[in-house]
């Protein structure tokens, strides 16, 4: 069959696209397909043989088509909706770049929204990049996060079943203090009366969370703010953490408030900052750091003595 040449377009190709358009909306009989194609392309004659050839062309092009039996009146059915519009490799790389920006700067709700978007549209992106890797956010259950939000808003105590990599399955109860992001992982801080302490859980290891029955002791919400001052050159040449907030800055120094809920991570941060930290108002915190450093030094001096 020769290509019909209407206004410099190829009629065969156009017919196929219209058939695909119709079948992607609903199944159709031969007559319905024929009428649709004639209406759209403005052709008068569209033979059964040509229709059959067109259907075969669609199958040859990789579309999953099936013809139902007598009961369903011999209708053509498209088994999978065609996806044409996709992002090419360069565009996928740009999207991955943006994903990294989201992961490193935005809050957990926004990170999860973007994660859910990519996971729901996997077929649209080239899969050669790490675009779907949200690190510690990969296995977070959205229902768990919705429950956590609800418990925080209603100020209800939580009962958590947690799967610890070292200690296995355990149950904890208490009030949720905060949801924090650290090193691209999401943590839940819980104030547990029994432990009299704040506990930190990886959100992706929480197996189950629900409202607990009322806890007997009244609980106070602990708001910790750790303050320290760093050199301007450290601030200019290092990314600050999500939990850090700048309170004052001048030519030489930058004052920071760290809203981290777990003191362990604040100490880690200060050890990393090293000599670039010039002031820590909290003497207790300073003493803890000095103790850790002395213990570290002790390891080296003990070996020397031996």
């Amino acid at each position, binding site marked *: *069959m020769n*290509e019909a*040449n209407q206004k*410099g*377009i*190829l009629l*065969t*190709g156009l017919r*196929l*696209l219209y058939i*695909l*358009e119709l079948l992607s909306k609903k199944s159709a009989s031969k007559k319905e397909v024929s009428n649709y194609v004639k209406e759209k392309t403005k052709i008068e004659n569209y033979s059964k043989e040509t229709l059959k*050839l*067109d259907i*075969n*062309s669609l199958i*040859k*092009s*990789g579309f999953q088509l099936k013809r139902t039996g007598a009961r369903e009146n011999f209708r053509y059915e498209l088994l999978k*909706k065609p*996806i*044409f*519009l*996709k*992002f*090419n*490799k*360069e*565009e996928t*790389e*740009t999207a991955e770049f*943006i994903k*990294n*920006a*989201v992961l490193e*700067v935005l809050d957990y709700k*926004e990170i999860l*929204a*973007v994660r859910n*978007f*990519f996971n729901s549209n996997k077929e649209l992106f080239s899969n050669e990049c790490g675009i779907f890797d949200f690190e510690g956010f990969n296995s977070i259950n959205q229902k768990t996060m919705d429950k956590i939000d609800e418990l925080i808003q209603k100020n209800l105590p939580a009962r958590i079943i947690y799967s610890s990599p070292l200690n296995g399955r355990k149950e904890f109860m208490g009030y949720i203090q905060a949801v924090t992001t650290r090193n691209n992982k999401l943590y839940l801080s819980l104030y547990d009366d029994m432990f009299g302490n704040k506990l930190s859980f990886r959100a992706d290891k929480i197996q189950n969370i629900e409202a607990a029955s009322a806890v007997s002791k009244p609980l106070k919400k602990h708001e910790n703010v750790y303050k320290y001052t760093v050199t301007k050159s450290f601030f200019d*040449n*290092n*990314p*600050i953490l999500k939990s*850090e907030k700048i309170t004052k800055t001048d030519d030489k120094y930058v004052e920071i408030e760290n809203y981290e809920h777990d003191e362990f991570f604040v100490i*880690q941060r200060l*050890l*990393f900052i*090293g*000599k670039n930290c010039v002031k*820590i108002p909290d003497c207790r915190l*300073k003493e803890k750091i000095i103790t850790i*450093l*002395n*213990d*570290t*030094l002790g*390891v*080296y001096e003990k070996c020397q003595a031996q």
Partner: protein
Amino acid sequence: MSGSIDSGVKIFLILDILFESPKNIEEICKKLSKQGIKADKKTVSKYLRTIKQFGFQTEKRNGKFHVLSSPFESKENFEGAEIIFCIIEHFFKNNIEYEPFKTKFENMFNLKINRKTHELIKEKFKISENITKNIQTVNNLIKQDKKEVNVLYKGKKLKLSIKEIKFAKNGIFLCAKNKTERTFSCLKLEYIESIKPDKTKISKFKPENGINFKIKNTLRKNYILKKGEIAHHFKDETIITNSYEEKEEIFSRLLKYGKNAEIVSPKKERDLFQKKVKELIEHYNSM
């Protein structure tokens, strides 16, 4: 008959070719012929007109055809899509190279951009023209695997080996091995005046010596090996050999591990680390 079947396959092949990446007519012909399908430029032009006639939005940019929308796609709502679109607009505001990507995105998703999302993105990411220019340069260099670069930073010339771009509340940083100062550095993109590939023959950069350190107690159970590290397991301890990171990077990590880590060799680095810890103790005591 066979001509008709070939026509059908061709139109979908051309769509696939264009969605893979924008192409001019000659490139489309070459791609088709690689798959054993003959099509001259005139025929390919007809196919492109047919695709447009049907309802695909196509655009010619720098001689190449882009397909920006499809009548088959039904737009869906995704909160995440709005966040991504706001970031694309913010980062690549005046960059026409990203226009097709933005248009495609708008055509594929039902975007209800509210002012709040825009404001949030503007507040979280402080972008200037220089930053956008540097982001693009670094990404292009990474794509071409030209990670050894010469950089002019605040008037200073530096030789770097690019690791990655890192985002933070206080700016966007180029993180790299600093070959000039033999450290690991994070440089704010807004202060980088120029970045060019380093064409000198010394392309691979290795630290002078590897460092061996012992890990103990709970650190031994939880430790995750970093790039370039090898673990040697013994009965009561594990020795990690790191021959990738600069010593300052390793020292920063070891400080965080406290008494659960100890440098074993070389003696020079062990002594240096011990000295660093002493200096830190004095520093904190004098605070």
